């Protein structure tokens, strides 16, 4: 059963299109990573799913309901981001107390224990916390709501590495105990890709790719070898990424389905097969095809 369904969503801010032609479905109880470069509309998409913003056109349903202005969706979903704010006169404990009243499945004990573990004083104030601590608190808040759709927008910004590790672990453990639909957008894909089941890749306001992580890992192959040989083999094929390593060696990334050539022959020509990590692949898929930062300096 798909919990989230988006069909042809478009979102315009004045004249600029933030999202266009977004169509995807997310099934129940999956952890999906929402990836993409800065400004590709990840935040906008999450805000639409949470009902904070209304799409310009297209249909969005969460639990078969339109999320904008829907109480049921609001009660069963949560968006965690670093713009989250709470009334200035509430300390962390006050916030948690109200969460108990608002959220039917709120786990007060979990929240209290996590707060203690991450050394957050319940008597302190949200606005007094550092960026990392604020995000840690927001994360705890999001986890403890146990909402069936939990959306994290860059949840780990500002956290140090130890905290990040703990946060990933906490997320996984709670997910195992209470499976739910989770979408995480993050820049740290390689840090958390083991948590993910699916990847939703956005590029310039469009869905570039929506696959399971395992498929993604097998989606592309990298070839490293003499430029001339590689050029010959890859002629006519779709190249996802290419880069001149040294003057006569180059690295090319191809779709795995296109690589029907004889491995033996390639090896004989000195071309090596290399797997492509999910993180790199996402970068390749969203980079402008006209080269990378090195080319700027090569001019």
């Amino acid at each position, binding site marked *: 059963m798909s919990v989230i369904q988006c069909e042809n969503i478009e979102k315009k801010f004045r004249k600029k299109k933030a999202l266009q032609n977004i169509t995807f479905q997310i099934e129940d109880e999956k952890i999906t990573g929402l990836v993409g470069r800065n400004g590709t509309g990840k935040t906008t998409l999450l805000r639409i799913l949470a009902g904070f913003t209304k799409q310009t056109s297209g249909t969005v349903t969460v639990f078969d309901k339109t999320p904008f202005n829907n109480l049921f969706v609001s009660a069963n979903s949560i968006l965690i981001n670093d713009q989250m704010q709470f009334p*200035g*006169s*509430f*300390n962390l404990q*006050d916030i948690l107390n109200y969460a108990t009243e608002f959220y039917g499945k709120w786990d007060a004990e979990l929240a209290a224990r996590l707060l203690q573990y991450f050394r957050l004083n319940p008597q302190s*104030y949200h606005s007094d916390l550092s960026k990392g601590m604020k995000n840690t608190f927001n994360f705890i808040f999001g986890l403890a709501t146990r909402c069936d759709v939990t959306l994290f927008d860059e949840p780990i910004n500002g956290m140090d590495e130890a905290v990040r590790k703990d946060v990933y672990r906490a997320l996984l453990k709670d997910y195992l105990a209470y499976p739910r639909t989770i979408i995480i957008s993050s820049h740290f894909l390689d840090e958390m890709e083991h948590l993910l089941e699916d990847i939703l890749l956005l590029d310039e306001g469009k869905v570039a790719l929506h696959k399971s992580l395992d498929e993604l890992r097998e989606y592309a192959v990298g070839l490293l070898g003499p430029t001339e040989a590689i050029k010959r083999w890859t002629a006519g094929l779709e190249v996802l990424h290419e880069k001149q390593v040294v003057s006569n060696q180059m690295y090319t990334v191809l779709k795995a389905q296109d690589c029907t050539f004889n491995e033996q022959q390639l090896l004989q020509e000195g071309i090596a097969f290399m797997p492509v990590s999910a993180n790199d692949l996402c970068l390749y898929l969203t980079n402008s095809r006209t080269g990378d930062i090195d080319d700027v300096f090569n001019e």
Partner: protein
Amino acid sequence: MTNFGILSILFLLLIIFIVVLFIKSMSKHMRLNQRPLKIFIAFYTTVLIIAPIIYLVLPKTEVTILTDKMQKKLSLENQMLYNALFENKTAEFDEKFLVNEWSREIKEKEIFLKMMNPEEGSQVGIIVQQSDALSNQITGKLYRKNYFVEEIHLRNFDSVNINIVDTLNEPIITWEDATTLVVKNPPNKKLSFVSVSDATDIIAFNNEDSRKNESTVVKIKEWEYAGPYYLLITVPKNIKVWSDEGLRIYK
């Protein structure tokens, strides 16, 4: 009315602006926590709830507001006193109106009456009476009649009249030398009245009675004879009485 209305609305908007700025600057400096907030609010609210009870039990000096009937009666008394003064029948009024009494032996055959600050208008009416006695004894009696403040208009209230006789200062009567009697107006007296109400004129509903507030004045009733005091001086026939203002002398 309309111009005034516009001005008052503009003034109101100006004050709104100032108050908003004030609160804004205040909110930047304040850190408001739940607990102290609640305690503060509870304290303030309690004080306010207790305030009316405290107000109720506090001692107050209330004034008697005269009804028309009372005022008529008091005026009648004044009239009777006035008549009595000229007929030498004051004895029955002594108890109520007599405030001071004195007598003095003089050697000379004449006395002078002198009014101080007559330009302010004398608050004391002087009545000189000759007696048949052949002594050198002069007696003086100071009477104070009922005296009203009339027509105190306060906003939504009807005008009210009050007998303020008890609160006035007495005139000063002294002998300058052996034969000169000086009568000085009573020292200035300040009277403060307060009225309190739960009603305001912002929401003064179209109630005819409460709309008499066009002119807010306090008037002190002018009597046919100026001032609230009479000084009755009784002199033996053999003594002559003189005054710069001139005198009528009654037998």
